[in-house]
């Protein structure tokens, strides 16, 4: 199984600022994802982080607000830009391992608890 290190684990930020969250994996992985878990709600996929190309964003999420980098197969960052209190959430990095259609599954980082004042 993949070991995922995500940091910071939590942060309190001021409105209008930006925060970059880092995700480091202990092995090379093809699939990396960023999820958001808002208070009392389920996980929502923000985007797929693609190595060497632009991230693929889900409906409702845009690159200007959530720029993502994926410089190699073990690392990715998610930036939450121009933050507002509505961005207060847990942000989770996730990686997919295994053979597509056979034994694939996702592993999750411990998350970043973000509070925006």
């Amino acid at each position: 199984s993949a070991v995922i290190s995500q940091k910071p684990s939590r942060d309190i930020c001021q409105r209008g600022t930006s925060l970059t969250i880092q995700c480091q994996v202990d092995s090379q992985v093809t699939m990396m994802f960023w999820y958001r878990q808002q208070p009392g709600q389920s996980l929502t996929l923000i985007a797929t982080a693609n190595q060497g190309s632009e991230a693929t964003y889900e409906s409702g999420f845009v690159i200007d607000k959530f720029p993502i980098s994926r410089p190699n197969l073990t690392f990715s960052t998610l930036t939450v830009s121009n933050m507002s209190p509505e961005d207060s959430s847990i942000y989770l990095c996730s990686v997919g391992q295994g053979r597509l259609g056979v034994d694939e599954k996702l592993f999750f980082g411990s998350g970043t608890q973000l509070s925006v004042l």
Partner: protein
Amino acid sequence: AQSVAQPEDQVNVAEGNPLTVKCTYSVSGNPYLFWYVQYPNRGLQFLLKYITGDNLVKGSYGFEAEFNKSQTSFHLKKPSALVSDSALYFCAVSAYGNNRLAFGKGNQVVVIP
């Protein structure tokens, strides 16, 4: 589009009794189905999955789930619940060959000693 419904907000069960957490899904094509558990102050952990084959899937910590195609359900079960099973449980679905998961809203399971 793919979606998951977990109809109950909270499931209360006495320790030693059977535990069932319900999940129904909607997806175009063959479904990949998953259960994840989130313990307090910890990250999500994989419990089990169904991709193909036997409809009854066995996973971690004594949990199992049954895939029912006609009812589009994937209920999570455990024959005898433990207090340590108290956690938040998420059902998730993905279309075939797609790692992009749609999660249900989650069910809080409370096992009463």
